[in-house]
């Protein structure tokens, strides 16, 4: 038990504290622990004056909204698979396999699909759809959508699996009760099933947003942050500030903001689980 405690203390708490402290210093290539009393927020001021950082934040928002489609589709697919029960194993296997593929490979594969001369675009052109534009990654405005598509591809099966687990845990009596009451198919899903699964949805949403905040691999593989800096994400920004610019203080400041973002997403989950366990205790007594 002691090693685990030590790891937690040093590698997590120590490291977070270290990052926070360094973010207030003027460290460049090597850490420097003196905090200039009058200029300790300098890194943060610079950060929010940096257009690339603003782009990163915007991108994370776009990515979150776009990837939310994965949850939606995941639910639809799970509902269909669950209703059908035919070939459930087959579909589950097919939808889930992208998850076993690393994000870097995912990115490369989709980069190849988006290749203007030789990829999908060319295929559509050869079918006679001459105006089809599938060269998303080369355009600042659409590059993010390309990344969203690839991350949906990667994550779809995961959310489907979670939703399927959620659907399976719903009592089968609900279905027959609904049938006796003559509730229509759509109303059953909208009014009964979705509210029953709100915890599953919330879990998915939180996991999704945590994943989005961390997005790095796929950006590197698909666009390398480009064109220009249009597909930077905070994670990409942190690593870039650290390894390319060699500015530890600046990178730490960006990392601290990432931590705050994570905490903002995460806190509701913590409160929710606390509330849930208290409620279940109350039910027992």
């Amino acid at each position, binding site marked *: 038990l002691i*090693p*685990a*405690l030590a790891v*937690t203390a040093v*590698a*997590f708490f*120590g*490291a*977070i504290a*270290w*990052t926070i402290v*360094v973010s207030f210093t003027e460290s460049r290539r090597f850490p420097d622990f003196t905090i200039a009393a009058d200029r300790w927020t300098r890194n943060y001021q610079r950060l929010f004056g940096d257009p690339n950082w603003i782009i990163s934040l915007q991108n994370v928002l776009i990515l979150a909204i776009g990837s939310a489609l994965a949850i939606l589709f995941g639910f639809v*697919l799970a509902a*269909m*698979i669950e*209703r*059908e029960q035919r*070939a459930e194993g087959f*579909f589950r*296997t*097919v939808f*889930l*396999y*992208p*998850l*076993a*593929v*690393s*994000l*870097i*490979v995912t990115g490369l*594969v*989709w980069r*190849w*699909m988006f290749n203007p001369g*030789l*990829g999908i675009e*060319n*295929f559509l052109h*050869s079918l006679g759809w001459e105006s089809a534009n599938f060269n998303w990654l080369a355009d600042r405005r659409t590059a993010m959508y390309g990344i969203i598509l690839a991350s949906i*591809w990667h994550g779809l099966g995961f959310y489907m699996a979670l939703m399927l*687990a959620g659907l399976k845990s719903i009592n089968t*009596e609900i279905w*027959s009760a609904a*049938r006796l009451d003559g509730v*229509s198919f759509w109303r059953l899903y909208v009014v009964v099933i979705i509210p029953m699964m709100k915890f599953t949805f919330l*879990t998915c949403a939180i996991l999704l947003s945590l994943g989005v*905040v961390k997005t790095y*691999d796929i950006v*590197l593989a698909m666009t390398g942050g480009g064109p220009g800096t249009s597909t930077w994400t905070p994670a990409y920004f*942190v*690593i870039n500030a*650290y390894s390319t610019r060699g500015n530890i203080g600046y*990178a730490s400041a960006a*990392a*601290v903001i*990432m*931590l705050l973002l*994570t905490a903002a997403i*995460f806190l509701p989950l913590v409160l929710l689980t606390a509330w849930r366990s208290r409620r279940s205790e109350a039910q027992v007594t």
Partner: protein
Amino acid sequence: MSVGADEIRAARATPRVARRRRRRVRGSTIANLVFLTMCAAFVSIPLYVVVVTSFKTMEQITLGQIFTLPTTWTLAPWWRAWAEVCAGMTCEGVRNGFFTSLKILFPSLFLSIGLSCVTGYALAHWNVRWANHFLFVLFLCAFVPFQIIMIPLVVLVASLGIYGTIWAMALVHAILAMPLLTLIFRNAYKDIPPEIINAAIMDSGSFWAIFFRVVLPMSGNIMIVVLILMITTVWNDLLVGLTFGGIGSQPMTVILANTVISQFGPAEYNVDMAAALLTAIPPLVVYFALGRFFVQGITAGAIKG
């Protein structure tokens, strides 16, 4: 539509045997299956394209027919990707990365599973003070983005003198995985009835004796789940390899990224795709071989974490 749905729901409510007997396929069922198949196609197309591309010759690729089968199947791209393609300065293909990834995999599996399995066992069955608080803290740690603790870890690892080696990466993987794995193990061991443990204590079993004789033999299932989880995360990781790997000790994903992204000369898409496939194959094999456990693993990682 609504009638069909009702029928299906009726079928669901009655046991499966009754369902089997009714073999008439309904319109909504067909619509469902068609939609599912279309989605399955969307998911499968990239894999198909990659496999096909990796067997094509460059002449055929430049014709631009991405979906057609290779006219002449060739293994040359695979060989080039494995042994000849250039990543930055060195031109030895991705094979070094493959072996490095393997070398990283085993120590990190050993370290992380050893550590978290004992900790999970201790937390589940021995009266540890502040156990619940510690669990809560672990729960928080499991969600800290790696970038936040990355730079201090670099400093820490460098001060240990192992920066840029395989051990650095194994250690970092073990640290990162520790909170989540401990939670998973703890939840799994909680299901072992306390009577068994108590009986073992009566038999004058010590902490370690009970662990090795009673708990470990009972944890085969959860072990497989955790193994799969760890193998896929360690193998697929890019960031740790990128920040902690030195020259000559970069894992496969990093080599792949270097190969494809910083390419000199004309792009060889077939070689790129073969390299990508080589990197993706090990986790895919694990997935298709042990799919059931894989699903368990990721849902355990998600919900219980």
